[in-house]
């Protein structure tokens, strides 16, 4: 391999977050300064797994000319796939039957045939595990963490988080104004299945009455008691922020009605939908909190869901800088001979963390974190006295 003239590729995993073009720009500009060539893989790995789907064979030449005209505030130029997993690619076989096949070897061979000697992959938590598997099979990979929830533990801030946080704050401001006008309690569900950073930090920014996060299981009777104390004739409204993955203690059973005509598609499917395995669906947490609070206090509540709105739009100034920094950092990693690592922002440095250490670690809110202390100082109730 000629280290002076390298050909590297960049791709983007599932789940759009604002700032992807900034990452691409950062990588291409940094690689250009080293005299390297950069190509982009379309739609995750799909571009290389189904090369006949696009006229350019799934590879985009990320020339300096293209980058000059790339708007860092716009969406990702490479596109994305629903999933980034080459080990389980859904396909129709020769007998017209649907199946999942392992195309990881084909992918690695195609990368080799294209003379690509390093891959920069912009991925979330699951993507890290998949890139780790590919790395173990010989792929020279450097990952860039992107996460709306900021739940990747090895880095202080994933790019995309700040844009999601800013948008959430704006929406919460509006929700509070609407609640004030309607004299009701708005219960707003925000992103955060495993980690409550968005709920907590946005809740602090708008001085919410209560913030409910996955890390602090909550008894809604306590929340109701606190709201009773806060709501008065002079302040006849409230704002509760609840993370999608908030955990509830002593929740009333909300049995799902099943049609009496036939109970199930199959006799095997007789489990309860209220088991602890229930998959979180958008709006469930807000609905639960709004319904139960309304039963416990005299005020009217209503649920709102921000949901996937946070994934669109332009990146904030922070995410543009982070994106450019992560892109350039990934090239620095490759240039330093690092392989199988994730670029991590650990102020004041960018560090390269081995993928084996980056996977399986979730960055959650601990009860002694600074943000929890700030929330307590502001009188924001976190579901229980800490």
């Amino acid at each position, binding site marked *: 391999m000629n280290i002076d003239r390298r050909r590297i590729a960049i791709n983007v995993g599932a789940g759009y977050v604002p700032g992807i073009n900034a990452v691409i720009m950062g990588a291409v500009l940094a690689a250009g300064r080293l005299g390297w060539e950069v190509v982009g893989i379309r739609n995750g790995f799909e571009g290389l797994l189904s090369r006949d789907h696009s006229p350019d064979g799934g590879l985009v030449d990320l020339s300096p000319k293209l980058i000059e005209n790339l708007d860092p505030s716009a969406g990702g130029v490479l596109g994305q796939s629903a999933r980034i997993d080459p080990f389980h690619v859904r396909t129709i076989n020769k007998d017209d039957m649907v199946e999942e096949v392992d195309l990881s070897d084909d992918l690695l061979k195609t990368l080799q045939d294209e003379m690509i000697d390093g891959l920069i992959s912009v991925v979330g938590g699951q993507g890290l595990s998949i890139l780790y598997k590919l790395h173990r099979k010989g792929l020279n990979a450097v990952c860039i963490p992107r996460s709306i929830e900021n739940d990747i533990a090895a880095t202080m801030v994933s790019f995309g988080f700040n844009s999601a946080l800013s948008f959430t704050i704006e929406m919460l401001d509006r929700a509070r104004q609407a609640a004030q006008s309607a004299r009701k309690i708005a219960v707003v569900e925000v992103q955060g299945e495993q980690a409550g950073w968005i709920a907590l930090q946005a809740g602090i920014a708008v001085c919410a009455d209560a913030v409910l996060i996955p890390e602090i299981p909550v008894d809604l009777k306590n929340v109701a008691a606190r709201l009773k104390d806060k709501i008065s004739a002079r302040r006849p409204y409230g704002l509760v922020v609840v993370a999608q993955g908030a955990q509830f203690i002593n929740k009333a059973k909300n049995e799902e009605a*099943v*049609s009496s005509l036939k109970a199930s598609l199959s*006799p095997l*499917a007789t489990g309860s939908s209220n088991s602890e395995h229930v998959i979180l*669906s958008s709006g469930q947490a807000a609905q639960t909190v709004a319904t139960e609070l309304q039963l416990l206090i005299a005020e009217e509540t209503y649920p709102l869901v921000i949901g996937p709105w946070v994934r669109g739009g332009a990146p904030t100034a922070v995410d543009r800088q982070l994106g450019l920094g992560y892109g350039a950092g990934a090239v620095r990693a490759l240039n330093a001979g690092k392989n199988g690592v994730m670029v991590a922002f650990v102020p004041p440095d960018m560090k390269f963390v081995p993928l084996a250490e980056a*996977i399986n670690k979730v960055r959650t809110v601990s009860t002694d974190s600074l943000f929890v202390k700030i929330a307590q100082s502001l009188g924001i109730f976190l579901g229980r006295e800490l």
Partner: protein
Amino acid sequence: MKKQNINPSDITGTVLNIQRYCSHDGPGIRTTVFLKGCSLRCKWCSNPESIRMKPELSYDPKKCTGRKCGLCLKSPFPEGAFYFVEGDDEHVKVNWDLAMDCDETHASLCPTGALEMFGKTMTVNEVLDEVEKDSSFYRNTGGGMTISGGEVMLQPDFAAALLKGAHDRGINTAVETACNVPWANIEKVLPHVDTMLHDHKLTIPERHKKWTGADNKRIKENFKKAYEMFPDTTFIARTPLIPGVNADEEHIRAVLAFIRPHKNVIDYELLPYHRFGLGKYQSLGVVYELDDYKTPSDDLVKKLQAIIDEAFGRK
């Protein structure tokens, strides 16, 4: 190479589960044998553990003793496949991308049974011996054995041997199928079937492909061929009813138009969508794709059922 003659009772297949006392899978009280492997990927599937052909690992956190044990974090389990998160959560977490390669040997090491395998290899005789235990129920209720899935027709030799074996033991037979397989598979199985329950999921091929992964052109051809070539077999059409996907009058009428010319299609059943399969997706690390859909209302089901009743002259 000389072809080996295998005794039909020794043929093996991958069985997910054998469920006794079933009342919705054909006439009377039945024992349903679920086979593994499916050729569709319906987004509403309530049995995700039946999709993959091979036996696979599942994890039940309720049975896991977590940090007190921690065996699955050590060799021979794959590195990184199981882990703990910082904080109060005592349960083991599963990295499904790395745990996919675990097999029966790994599952057997779990002392509490939190890790177990969905699916095992069984011979025809092993299955039939289990099924035969409830023969008296079958005789008294007109029941028997139903093979379901997954897709039964993906294991045609095993299914055919099972069904024939059941007939030899005097047991009535039924299959549940979507028929998204080559006709040769169906041709092997159907001679031994008394009742075929078959799914008409969507009418328009493009929409069928969108929601199940494959279009329905071959499926409809297979149904038609089956009705015509097996006049003595009883057919019952079915539709899993999902609001916003197929729970509409147009689909029901299109299915009725397709089946009514065939006198051996004796009924058309509606199966209202439910969300009971959700927990199983998490146990398997499979993404559930039909997140926000609701069960159909009783009123809607009754309205559509009335159309079917009228078509079958049951008004």
